[in-house]
């Protein structure tokens, strides 16, 4: 069920989602996206370019975060605009051979603004990993009927 514009108010929560991330997930994202920068899968390379370790693709985090909005909207095509700034890297530990995630990303969303003329709701996402906001100004514009 898609939310009805008239039922919404600024400040409402749309829910939350936890995303576990492993090194395998980063390899899958590299393959799916075509972004094979070794900082996302090779520890020695990442530390060699002065990063704290292997980091998730910013686009992995952005792409995983928007699923909260897609599921809430009821139709992925309703997300007509989506933007973010990448402020902190998500460092993904090597947990190969265990069932532990290498990092965890917490996503939550609230209605930031409603535009009755355009029939759009702006959803503001809060995206946190290891206690730090990893995305800033993560905003999705959702077209509602």
């Amino acid at each position, binding site marked *: 069920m898609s939310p009805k514009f008239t039922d919404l108010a600024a400040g409402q929560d749309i829910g939350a989602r936890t995303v576990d991330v492993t090194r395998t997930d980063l390899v899958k*994202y590299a393959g799916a*996206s075509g972004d094979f920068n070794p900082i996302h899968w090779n520890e020695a390379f990442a530390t060699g370019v002065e990063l704290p370790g292997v980091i998730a693709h910013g686009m992995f985090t952005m792409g995983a975060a928007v699923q909260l909005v897609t599921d809430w909207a009821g139709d992925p095509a309703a997300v007509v605009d989506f*933007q973010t700034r990448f402020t902190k890297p998500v460092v993904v530990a090597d947990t190969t051979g265990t069932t532990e995630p290498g990092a965890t990303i917490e996503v939550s969303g609230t209605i930031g603004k409603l535009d009755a003329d355009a029939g759009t709701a702006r959803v503001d996402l809060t995206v946190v990993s290891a206690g730090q906001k990893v995305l800033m100004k993560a905003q999705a514009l959702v077209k509602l009927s």
Partner: protein
Amino acid sequence: MTINPDLQGRSYPAAEVYDVGREKIREFARAVKATHPAHFDVDAAKALGHSDLVAPPTFAIIIAQRADAQLIEDPEAGIDFSRVVHADQRFTHHRPILAGDRLVAELHVDGVRAMGGGAMITTRSEIFALGDGDAREAVTTTTSSILVRGEGQ
């Protein structure tokens, strides 16, 4: 290595065609941990009024980063890919990307500014779907800023 300031205002015309396949939409959706049925099940997408599977909202990054590669790999640009960090990203969808679309991207370098020993470069990809004959339909505009870190950054 220094970034060539003359890059600003440069454009790279639409090059290769990107054919959007159903399995690629499914693979990308799984890779971003998406579960919405419209990414996986054609009947579910059609029930929402779409002609075929709907790509996730960030799918266009595949096409945009292919366009960006023309700049990053341009020897005149002076960009060391291993020192590139993604700073910001935006997708504006004029219509959803669907399986079966044949897409091309025009790349525009909208901004280059020095930051410490590095540089911030802002690019914009205008993504169009090819139709019959010369027809082109605007599908998505992506804008992206990358920080090319200088030594010690």
